[in-house]
């Protein structure tokens, strides 16, 4: 029960009778008039408990796009409902408008739409829905909040998906489905078919030709059903921001591009994200929904300020004894690499092919290049030191037998995809 600004204006109107008859009793009389009007209005207002509110609408949205969530407000009472409804969301959900003004006659229902333009990845849970009803005079409002559950999952924008068509084209080249056919190590026998003009004469299968009395060629396809394990480090080093987003987001971008590509190549992709514990695990059993699963399951994963326990993540790799391509998406931080990662690497490298993909910070390169004044030169020296430490860490990893990719956020997905294609072409998976 709360007065409206209109009630305040009504009280202020009392100045007129008070000027005409300046006495204390006039003030009391006016207060009486206002109280009676307010009470009458409150009696005539629809009860906010006589509302049935249900929610419908989008349950996921890609970061940078807008989702719509609707509230269906049904008036189950006998009086017309006038007032405001607020659908409350956390600030980063970017909900617009803040409140809806609506009038619902008894027994009818109305739908109000809130547009969500989220500013961060992750799950956004709706808070309470608050209804404030006013009487016909709009003097007194009655208010009540109810829980109307709602969740919108804000997905990774996956900007690297623009590179997918070109990498798929490269994959088809290896695959033998394209005009140019390659053959060699890393390919396996697919089938025999009739020779057509333009085919490589070296691929003619003479024994089959002799049997069929027609020219027959062998076709080849790259290795399939290889196991690819993408490990996303969500520890403290991934929390550092490069540009405007944490390193983890760039790493996810790369992981998603690789997942999409390897899925098309009929490899079995698994994605694991974790720091001290495993935070998300996408098994990739169903290839059709693999990418969607990965995007959806990785959406709520945020970096945490804890040191990554590589023993736990290496345990995930060791679940299968099949030789795999293990892609570690972790920043190349010298201390973290030396203390945490290197000790677990030898056993991994012995059984698998291990690639470490790290998000580099272009700001460090900019710092090392700018040498105009004394402050910049100190910065440049510090940046060179950082780079040499990273190079040393990369070298140490290389000695263990790990392929290291260190690239800025926008290049890393492409570099990782190309590295995968190169490995595939050479049959090194």
């Amino acid at each position, binding site marked *: 029960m709360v007065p409206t600004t209109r009630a305040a204006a009504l009280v202020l109107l009392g100045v007129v009778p008070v000027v005409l008859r300046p006495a204390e009793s006039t003030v009391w009389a006016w207060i009486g008039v206002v109280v009676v009007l307010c009470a009458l209005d409150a009696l005539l207002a629809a009860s906010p408990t006589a509302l049935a509110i249900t929610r419908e609408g989008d349950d996921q949205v890609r970061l940078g796009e807008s989702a719509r969530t609707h509230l269906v407000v049904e008036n189950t009472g006998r009086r017309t409902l006038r007032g405001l409804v607020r659908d409350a969301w956390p600030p980063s959900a970017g909900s617009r408008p803040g409140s809806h003004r609506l009038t619902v006659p008894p027994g009818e229902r109305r739908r109000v739409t809130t547009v969500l333009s989220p500013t961060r990845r992750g799950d956004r849970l709706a808070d309470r829905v608050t209804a404030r009803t006013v009487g016909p005079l709009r003097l007194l409002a009655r208010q009540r909040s109810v829980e109307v559950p709602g969740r919108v999952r804000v997905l990774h924008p996956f900007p690297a998906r623009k590179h997918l068509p070109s990498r798929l084209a490269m994959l088809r080249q290896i695959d033998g489905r394209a005009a140019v056919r390659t053959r060699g190590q890393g390919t396996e026998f697919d089938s025999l078919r009739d020779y057509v003009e333009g085919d490589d004469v070296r691929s003619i299968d003479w024994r089959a030709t002799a049997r069929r009395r027609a020219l027959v060629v062998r076709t080849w396809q790259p290795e399939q059903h290889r196991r690819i394990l993408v490990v996303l480090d969500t520890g403290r080093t991934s929390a550092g921001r490069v540009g405007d987003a944490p390193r983890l987001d760039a790493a996810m971008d790369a992981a998603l591009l690789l997942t999409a590509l390897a899925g098309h190549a009929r490899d079995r992709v698994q994605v694991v994200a974790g720091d001290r514990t495993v935070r998300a695990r996408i098994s990739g059993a169903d290839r059709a929904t693999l990418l969607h699963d990965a995007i959806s399951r990785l959406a709520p994963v945020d970096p945490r300020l804890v040191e990554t326990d590589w023993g736990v993540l290496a345990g995930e790799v060791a679940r299968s004894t099949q030789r795999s391509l293990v892609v570690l998406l972790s920043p190349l931080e010298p201390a973290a690499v030396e203390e945490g990662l290197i000790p677990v690497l030898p056993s991994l490298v012995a059984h698998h092919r291990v690639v470490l993909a790290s998000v580099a910070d272009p700001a460090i390169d900019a710092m090392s290049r700018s*040498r105009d004044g004394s402050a910049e030169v100190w910065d440049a020296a510090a940046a060179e030191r950082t780079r040499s430490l990273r190079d040393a860490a990369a070298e140490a990893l290389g000695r263990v037998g790990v392929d290291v990719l260190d690239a800025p956020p926008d290049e890393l997905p492409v570099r990782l995809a190309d590295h995968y294609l190169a490995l595939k072409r050479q049959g090194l998976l």
Partner: protein
Amino acid sequence: MTTTATPAGSSATEGVRPAAHTDPTLRRVRGVVGWVVLLVLGGIVLALVAGSPAPQDYLHPDGTGQRGTGALVEVLRDRGIDVDVAETAGEVLDAGGDRPGSTVVVGNTEMLTTAAARRMLERTRDADRVVFLDGAPDVLGDLGLGLGITYAPVDADIPRCSLPWVRPDDRVSRVTWSIVADGPSLPQGATGCYPLEVPDDVPQSERPPSGYAVVDLPAGSTHAPVTVVGFPDAATNRFVVESEHAGLVVRLLGASPHLVWYHPTAADVTENPPTGEEAEAVWPAWTTTAAVVVSLAFVVFAVARGRRLGRLVPEPLPVVVRATETTEDRARMYRSAADRSRAAAVLRRATATRLATRLGLTRGAPTDDVARAAAAATGLDAAAVDLLLRGAAPADEAALVTLAQQLTSLEEKVSTP
């Protein structure tokens, strides 16, 4: 300090009680309160020890300066007269100024309002006498005594009147005010002493009405006997010894066994505000009630706007750490330590490593090999390149900047031959 002494034997059963008294906020508040109390107590003690300075007001009964009347009050006290000082009209009554056997003397009237003077006069009807020592120029005309006052800085010769406290040969030399009748003549029963003669050379048109330096009124229905004195300077420490001033004022004020010295202050004005027919005329009669209505409306408005439409929604925010932070801090550290040799070594090694890669040498190639190869590739002097890559640490910051820029230009020359 942080542990609670629990009675032996009970600690095991009661467990650990929350140690409320170790709450740091509470402890800090206590500390502050303690200091404040100490400061206030110290201030009070100091004030008691030092006492207040002697007042400098004109005609102040405790005033020891030239304008005060401390000497006169001391003389009166020596003669066995009980002197009380009152600063408000209320205090005059509290001190017993409304009883027979008391004389009320109004000293400095700068802060005397008409309301206070009227109230004082009315309440002191039973007093022996009320004396306006400085003539009360601001209020005398409003008191309904039938007297007025004008400025007249002249000497008075002889009294020419018969009052108990005035002797025929008492001369007064410091007259300030001339007490005049508020009509054709002084009120009935009034006695005027020291008629003031206007010098002959003043033109007829500018001659002030003839008045007296002292006017004595008998008791009336609304007031005790009133004496209005026009020579206040005669009571001050400076002039009380002049002429026959001392005897005159001591006889005037020492007539009763009890003297109340009324010295109005700002507190008196607050207690007796100027009665304001004019003040009320400024604001319309409905001002107060309208103000009440407006403030009520404001309160309703505040309540209406103050109610939220639903609660605030909290949100856990992600940590924001820039990835360059460690590098920036390292730069700050180099800078604050002014470690030029280390900075130069780092820059040189980075350049040498890049040049080695560029020139087809192994990554860990010795620096003099790199310098030689770079000189060969660019055509620069081998010794200069060697000095650039392996020379001494720069002597100052300017040299470091120069070195860094030379390294950059060397790399550029190697990469764009």
